[in-house]
């Protein structure tokens, strides 16, 4: 196998506390430096929390894992200083094609809405994603990223936890007011707190291969159901950076994972697909069985779970890393307010309420996709094939084709942190929804609306405001006046937020709508802030 990528080896360093044999209590310790743990570190540090990250390894994710990242996670990474680099390095795509047997049955266009900074979707190998974040962590003085630190055990106390960690220099202990477990689907931390992790494993296997080729294929997502080169199974072809292509071969339950992983068995499959003359080299291959599972509670005492440690989904729809990143986006500001004594500890419990809802939504979506791709009975296979055959001629059948519903954020419409609308609004920006971006102009310079949010609570008002900030308890929310502090460069803010003179939004630190009104009422804003911090 060849390699287009050289895995970095990050240096292990002994920590001063281990060296000195000193027991130190940290505000937050993150377990695991995968995409979710790294995002957590950057988010927490951006909010002013000194964050220790422990990872048992010393490099990035090895082999073929995540490929597609959606707009909302890209916006989060952009806030954390690495989104632009990911988009630059990644491959943007819009067109998806669906084939059944010998023929193209239909194609779709993601048709991204214009005037958003971030694209609807990019493709990028997971190792690049992690590498960029590791580099960003090195620039953040509040992030203390420690390689070759394996969590061995954990003990919970009233308001902190004690962690026993193994490094090349031996075993030592440290304490944390909060532990954020981002140690993946096989989370050791989850076992240490005795949490349940239940759901279903799908009776199917997939060969996931990364292939290097200069291909004539366009930059599109191609999905085959039952193609002539791989009968009775599905195949997905997707482009990544560096002329690396991802190919997923569905193998069925009876396939032997050890045999299937051998290059001499993979290469004929790829040749059958690409044709006998195709020039390619295999970079990596793994065989997976996919599952959908969720932890019972996202918080166990002082330990909070995020990413794959909290929920596992089959990859159809690219919801794994995408949703894990949104977990920590939801958590960071809550932890900061609780650590600062500005919000009650119950605010942390709303992390479970909001993100368990999102996890259930993601699991439901990827289970539906899996049921379409791997029908569980002869009858459900007939329905699946009927949909595919009808799709070519009859437009009605196309929305029924499910080769993965690509990740979009789950709005927290019923969250207890929302202040319900008392005025009428059109559009999508109901309380609990992630804010839509839009182009703005500030001091004569072009910029983006989301770039003006996310430091803390923000009051956004269309037109004049009686105050420069609204205070509630120890929280100060600055007022951003659209049309004065920032111009609505293309009118998209008014359109997306149904904004008219006086329209006022309270935005949470994670860029979600907390409340909105048709006029600026400081008392109501204050009440909504109090509600949004569970006080």
């Amino acid at each position, binding site marked *: 196998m060849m390699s287009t990528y050289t895995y970095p080896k990050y240096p292990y360093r002994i920590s001063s506390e281990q060296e000195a044999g000193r027991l130190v209590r940290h505000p937050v310790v993150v377990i695991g430096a995968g995409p979710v743990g790294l995002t957590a570190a950057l988010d927490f540090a951006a909010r002013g929390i000194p964050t220790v990250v422990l990872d048992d390894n010393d490099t990035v994710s090895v082999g073929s894992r995540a490929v597609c990242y959606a707009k909302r996670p890209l916006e989060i990474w952009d806030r954390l200083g690495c989104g632009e680099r990911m988009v630059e390095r990644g491959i943007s795509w819009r067109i998806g094609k669906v084939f059944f047997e010998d023929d193209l049955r239909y194609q779709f266009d993601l048709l991204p809405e214009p005037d958003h900074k971030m694209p609807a979707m990019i493709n990028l190998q997971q190792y690049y994603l992690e590498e960029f974040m590791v580099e960003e962590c090195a620039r953040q003085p509040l992030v203390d990223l420690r390689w070759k630190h394996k969590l061995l055990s954990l003990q919970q106390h009233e308001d902190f936890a004690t962690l026993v960690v193994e490094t090349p220099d031996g075993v030592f202990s440290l304490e944390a007011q909060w532990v954020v477990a981002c140690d993946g689907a096989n989370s050791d931390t989850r076992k240490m707190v005795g949490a349940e992790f239940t759901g279903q494993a799908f009776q199917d296997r997939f060969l996931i291969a990364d292939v290097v080729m200069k291909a004539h294929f366009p930059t599109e997502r191609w999905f085959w159901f039952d193609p002539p080169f791989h009968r009775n199974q599905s195949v997905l072809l997707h482009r990544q950076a560096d002329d690396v292509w991802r190919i997923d071969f569905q193998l069925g339950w009876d396939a032997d994972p050890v045999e299937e992983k051998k290059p001499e068995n993979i290469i004929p499959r790829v040749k059958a697909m690409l044709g006998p003359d195709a020039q390619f080299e295999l970079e990596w291959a793994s065989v997976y069985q996919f599952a959908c599972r969720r932890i019972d509670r996202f918080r166990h005492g002082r330990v909070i779970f995020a990413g794959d440690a909290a929920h596992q989904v089959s990859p159809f729809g690219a919801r794994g890393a995408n949703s894990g990143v949104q977990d920590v986006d939801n958590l960071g500001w809550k932890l900061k307010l609780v650590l600062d004594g500005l919000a009650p500890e119950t605010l942390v419990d709303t992390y479970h309420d909001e993100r368990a809802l999102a996890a259930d939504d993601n699991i439901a979506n990827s289970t539906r996709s899996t049921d379409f791709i791997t029908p569980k009975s002869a*009858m459900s296979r*007939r*329905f699946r*094939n*009927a*949909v595919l*055959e*009808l799709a070519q001629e*009859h437009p*009605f*059948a196309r929305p*029924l084709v499910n080769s993965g519903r690509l990740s979009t954020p789950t709005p927290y419409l019923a969250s207890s942190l929302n202040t319900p609308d008392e005025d009428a609004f059109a559009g999508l920006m109901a309380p609990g929804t992630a804010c839509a971006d839009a182009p703005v102009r500030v001091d004569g310079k072009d910029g983006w609306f989301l770039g003006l949010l996310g430091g803390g609570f923000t009051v956004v008002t269309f037109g004049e405001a009686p105050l420069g900030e609204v205070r509630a308890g120890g929280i100060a929310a600055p007022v951003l006046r659209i049309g004065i502090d920032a111009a609505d460069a293309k009118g998209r803010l008014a359109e997306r937020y149904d904004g008219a003179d006086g329209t006022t939004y309270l935005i949470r630190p994670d860029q979600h709508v907390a409340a909105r009104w048709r006029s600026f009422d400081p008392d109501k804003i204050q009440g909504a802030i109090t509600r949004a911090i569970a006080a």
Partner: protein
Amino acid sequence: MLHILPADAHRHDALIRSPNIPDPDGFYEELIESQRLLTDEAAQLMNCKLILLLANHVGDRAVLTQALKAAGGAVK
């Protein structure tokens, strides 16, 4: 031709359970005849397509759920 609509035909929220096909014997014959030359497997696939086409034609989610129940499906 005089075509009298059944009383509940205009109510979009209820599955029509009273006779609504003007030519029941003719329709039934056409249905059976349309599959006469098909193998069991081909007929099953055709039935699936037929269900999907008709479901889309009905379009009303509540009515579709009622139909699934009336047909004996395990519907919550």
